[in-house]
């Protein structure tokens, strides 16, 4: 019992070929769209490369770009097949290529599905990478004279202003790091000496943040230093002050941004998967219908198209048997030798029988 059998008259076959040709060109455009999406996400990730520690998240845009290119190629091949499908002399040469094509197209759909899953699953890895990257950025903020780290100050400042965030988790991360370089400290000042002495590692730590943490929405001019001391500033309450600095941490801000980017591409990718699946199914119908028509005595007549020749279970059993035979090919089995000898006799008889009827007809 064939799976999802449908009858195709000549006109329906023509319509199917035309519709599939259009659909495969649509799928080519979708492939180009997927490629461009991958390029865009990759560029966005590369822009903030300096605050990410590893590039594991790059697998999402890389896959998108690969799948986009492969899908353009595969669907272009599908459109060529459609053009040849109704010509009985040209269609048979596509048979082997079609087998490969089905495998490739199904693989592409699976990869696209994997991309959608990965974009959710890799969120934790992205957060880890950002946490380490930002921690290093904050630590090396003061090292504007060290080659290889001199850009960190500008990067972190621009990042905090653009994403409206401060520090790694929140602004208190700045209290634990010396972000003022020793070059700009006046070591003759008593205050500086006290601070350095009060710290085990001899670092100049203060309860202050850089200017890029300041929130423009705040009604009062920005307070950057002596933040934990409510008496240091007039009309200032440390615990209840909310608007003075950005309250969000940069790790959270960046994660939200990238997750938002990848989630918003989710519906687009899912619809491309749908289009690709419909191309595969239509191609299968076209292949079986045209092959059925070519086997008929009257090529203009009705033929049947199906997805699988037998039902799902039978096809699965067939495939399993074929795979078993392939695996048993190298083995020598005494039981099968006798069975093989019997089969050989039966085959010889069958060949004799086949040889005799033709002279009679």
């Amino acid at each position, binding site marked *: 019992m064939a799976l999802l059998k449908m009858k195709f008259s000549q006109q329906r076959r023509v319509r199917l070929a035309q519709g599939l040709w259009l659909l495969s060109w649509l799928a080519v455009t979708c492939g180009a769209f997927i490629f461009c999406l991958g390029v865009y996400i990759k560029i966005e990730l590369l822009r903030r490369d300096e605050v990410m520690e590893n590039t594991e998240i790059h697998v999402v845009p890389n896959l998108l770009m690969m799948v986009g290119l492969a899908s353009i190629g595969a669907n272009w091949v599908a459109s060529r097949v459609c053009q040849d499908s109704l010509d009985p002399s040209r269609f048979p040469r596509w048979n082997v290529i079609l087998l490969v094509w089905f495998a490739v197209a199904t693989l592409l759909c699976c990869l696209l599905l994997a991309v959608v899953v990965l974009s959710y699953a890799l969120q934790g890895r992205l957060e880890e990478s950002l946490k380490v990257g930002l921690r290093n950025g904050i630590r090396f903020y003061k090292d504007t004279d060290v080659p290889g780290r001199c850009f960190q100050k500008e990067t972190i400042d621009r990042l905090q202003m653009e994403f409206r965030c401060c520090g790694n988790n929140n602004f208190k991360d700045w209290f634990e790091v010396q972000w003022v370089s020793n070059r*700009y400290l006046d070591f003759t000042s008593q205050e500086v000496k006290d601070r350095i002495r009060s710290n085990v590692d001899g670092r100049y730590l203060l309860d202050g943040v850089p200017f890029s943490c300041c929130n423009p929405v705040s009604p009062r001019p920005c307070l950057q230093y002596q933040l934990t001391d409510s008496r240091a500033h007039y009309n200032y309450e440390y615990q209840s002050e909310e608007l003075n600095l950005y309250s969000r941490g940069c790790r959270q801000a960046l994660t939200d941004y990238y997750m938002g980017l990848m989630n918003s591409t989710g519906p687009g990718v899912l619809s491309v998967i749908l289009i690709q699946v419909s191309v595969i199914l239509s191609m299968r119908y076209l292949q079986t219908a045209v092959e059925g028509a070519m086997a008929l005595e009257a090529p203009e007549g009705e033929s049947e198209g199906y997805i699988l020749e037998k039902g799902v279970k039978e096809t699965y059993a067939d495939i399993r048997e074929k795979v078993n035979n392939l695996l048993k090919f190298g083995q020598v089995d005494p039981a099968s030798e006798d069975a093989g000898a019997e089969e050989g006799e039966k085959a010889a008889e069958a060949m004799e029988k086949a040889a005799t009827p033709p002279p009679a007809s």
Partner: protein
Amino acid sequence: MAVGKITFTKTEREKLAEVLWLLNWISVVTGAILFGLGLFLKIEIQKWQEVMSEQGILYVPHMLITTGLAACGINYLGSKICLDCADTNKFLRWKLVMMPYIVCTFFFTACVLAGALMCYSVRSQLEESLYLGLRNTMRFYKDTDTPGRCYLKKTLDLLQIQFQCCGNADYRDWFQIQWVSNRYLDMTDSAVVDRVRSNVDGKYLMDSVPFSCCSTLSSRPCIQHNLSNPAAHAHYDEQSQQLNLWRRGCQQALLDHYTGIMQSIGLTVLLIWLFEVLLVLTGVRYLQTAMENVIRLGDPESESEGWILENSLAETACYNFNIIKNLGKCYQVDDDPNINVPTAAADREVPSHQVRVNVAS
């Protein structure tokens, strides 16, 4: 002697009509472009309208928007007219509309030119408006509790961050205004009271700037306070001072930004105007005169002449000038022989005597 006289055969007339139909459709597209440019300019100006003292320069985008819409309408009508002009019979339908259509096209082309010139001439008005607007915004920077001014702090901070500028002409403008609100000043502190008393207007002036003036390119943490006294900061040399704050004034930054936009828009509008005048307007004029001459000659198959002006420029100018000169004279006495003009002989008018008329019965 006609200006620009060309002879047209029937096929040439039809070709001209077809070409003009296409040109009119292209003009509809350029009209839409004009509209889009006007809209874009309006949005750009309105983004920073809070730092401009008056909205006067909005007449430039408004002119572009109305001209763009008029262009779309007139050229759509023109394409219909030109399509019908290929056929002499259909042209008769439009005979009366042709002249007003050409006059309208001429006027809106003049408006396009005016729009382009406005883009270049608005610079001085913009400069004045920005200077006054920025001065007021800086004055009201501290008034975050006054309705109508509470957003000026946020606007100015974001402006200085985005355009990388500080103050009106430069950062010293901040030294001359009180940008810290009295709400955040401890009036019991003697230092504060001294500062306020030392000033004629009782303003709290400091040699400090807001955080948004800080430059991200500086290699040291931003120095915002005690800017007039470099010795107050450790190792604050000339180079540090150069990089510490944004050096450019916001008036200059915004002026450059808007001048750049308006110059590109002005150039595009000039190109559109050239296209309109050289191709569309002259083409339509030739078509109109050629079709009118064909109708005057009576034979639709014959050749006809087209021109830009029937007589030379000087004669047309004289003719039109005479019309204007004689406009008000239509109620005055002139050389019409039917009007009885009392001459000098009438003074000696003989009293009329009764004329006996014998009524023949």
